[in-house]
């Protein structure tokens, strides 16, 4: 027993030192899983044989240490701490037959799997980067040949360009400095001009809304402006005797057609 006690103290001192080192170095870590992986190395065992309980305790000490030093930890570090505290209780307490959900062992096994997988990805990432690489260890043809005779423009565009272009359009408004912007207005003059061009073909009765200009139909604000000016323009044309207007009842759609040639 005293041996155990002593052992536990010694480990915890080591852990504390390790935790302090981690806290100081927090910027170098990529999230809680990374910290856990680093902590697990202090156990110096195969990741498959790692003690998740010990690891959970080490991590909780790391978080306490950070709190003691008044270092603000990102939320995900705290989420992990809460989860590990939960896991620890599951591992220590006898299983409650009433309780739903996976056992502590299952949760621990999954965490071990995640750590092992992350370490494996680190390993292969290093292997990949250490391979012979184009432009560093082996090379492509430097003097590509081109016989000047047929000229063809090859447009280059990547999917990244495409996505950025779209993102750019969609965020353009965010970058504009604050200034009063006149809403889009389709002027009466424009509407008149347009209606004069169209009216010759309007032999049948047609609704006013059909005469709205393309590009002014989807956006409600623009539509309202176009509707108003188109309406005003049609009144003007009626006054000039070029169109006829009718409306079946109040608030019914307004209809118009070209005034019959001879009347």
């Amino acid at each position, binding site marked *: 027993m005293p041996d155990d006690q002593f052992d536990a103290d010694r480990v915890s001192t080591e852990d504390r030192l390790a935790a302090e080192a981690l806290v100081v170095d927090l910027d170098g870590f990529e999230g809680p899983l990374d910290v856990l992986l680093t902590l697990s190395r202090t156990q110096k065992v195969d990741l498959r044989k790692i003690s998740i309980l010990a690891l959970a305790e080490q991590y909780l000490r790391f978080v306490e240490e950070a709190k003691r030093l008044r270092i603000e930890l990102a939320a995900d570090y705290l989420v992990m701490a809460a989860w590990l505290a939960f896991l620890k209780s599951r591992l220590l307490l006898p299983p409650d037959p009433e309780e739903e959900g*996976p056992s502590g062992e299952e949760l621990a096994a999954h965490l071990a799997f995640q750590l*092992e997988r992350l370490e494996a990805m680190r390993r292969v990432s290093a*292997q*990949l980067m250490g391979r012979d690489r184009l432009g560093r260890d082996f090379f492509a043809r430097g003097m590509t040949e081109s016989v000047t005779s047929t000229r063809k423009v090859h447009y280059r565009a990547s999917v990244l360009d495409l996505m950025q272009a779209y993102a750019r359009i969609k965020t353009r408004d965010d970058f504009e400095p604050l200034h009063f912007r006149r809403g889009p207005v389709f002027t009466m003059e424009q509407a008149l001009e347009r209606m004069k061009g169209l009216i010759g073909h309007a032999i049948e009765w047609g609704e006013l809304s059909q005469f709205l200009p393309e590009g002014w139909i989807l956006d409600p604000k623009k539509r309202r402006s176009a509707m108003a000016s188109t309406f005003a323009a049609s009144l003007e044309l009626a006054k000039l005797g070029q169109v006829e207007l009718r409306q079946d009842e109040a608030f019914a759609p307004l209809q118009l057609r070209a005034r019959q040639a001879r009347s």
Partner: protein
Amino acid sequence: MSDAPEKDVSSLFEAPPMAEQERMVEAILFATSEPMSARQIEARLPHGADVAEALVHVRKRYQGRGVHLTKIGDAWAFRTAPDLGFLMQKEQVEERKLSRAAMETLAIIAYHQPVTRGEIEEIRGVSVSRGTIDLLLELEWIKLGRRRMTPGRPVTFIVTQTFLDHFGLESARDLPGLKELRETGLLENRPPPGAPIDLATGEEIEDEDGEADDQDDMFT
């Protein structure tokens, strides 16, 4: 249909002898720095040429030489022998140093492809940092795969031919350590037991059942 007229017509377009086809393939591939697929090469050769066979000949001819014919996915390119890289300091391109996050993300995409952003985050235990995916797309080492047929239909990422070319891989099957990873089950899609907690976001992970097929696509 009689044979005689056909013969006459085909003789007009008769493929040159294999030795000649080989020369042509050699010339075409020598002239470009980009890998070319057999189909692209074929489009440049006289009608009736057997590109596959010509490529085999060319490859054999350059074995052990200072320049090799390498296969990159379904394309081909001449590349200098890697052991002679030290002679080429002048041609060496300044390499952009990749962050650890970018290297790991790349490895995860290569070994787990097609893979969603959520899965990358689940493996790394952190959210994918701003610009990491951006950088890898810009290098043309990754591209978009098919959307996952799971709720939310997330986009997936896969590695490209440029990636294979850069790392001297004939196919994604030749990734270092791939076999071992598969054998130890580390590439399996193992959902967390019970109520899944996503370490990156603390949110529940989407149901990822039935996508094992996707994952096998590249490697089987």
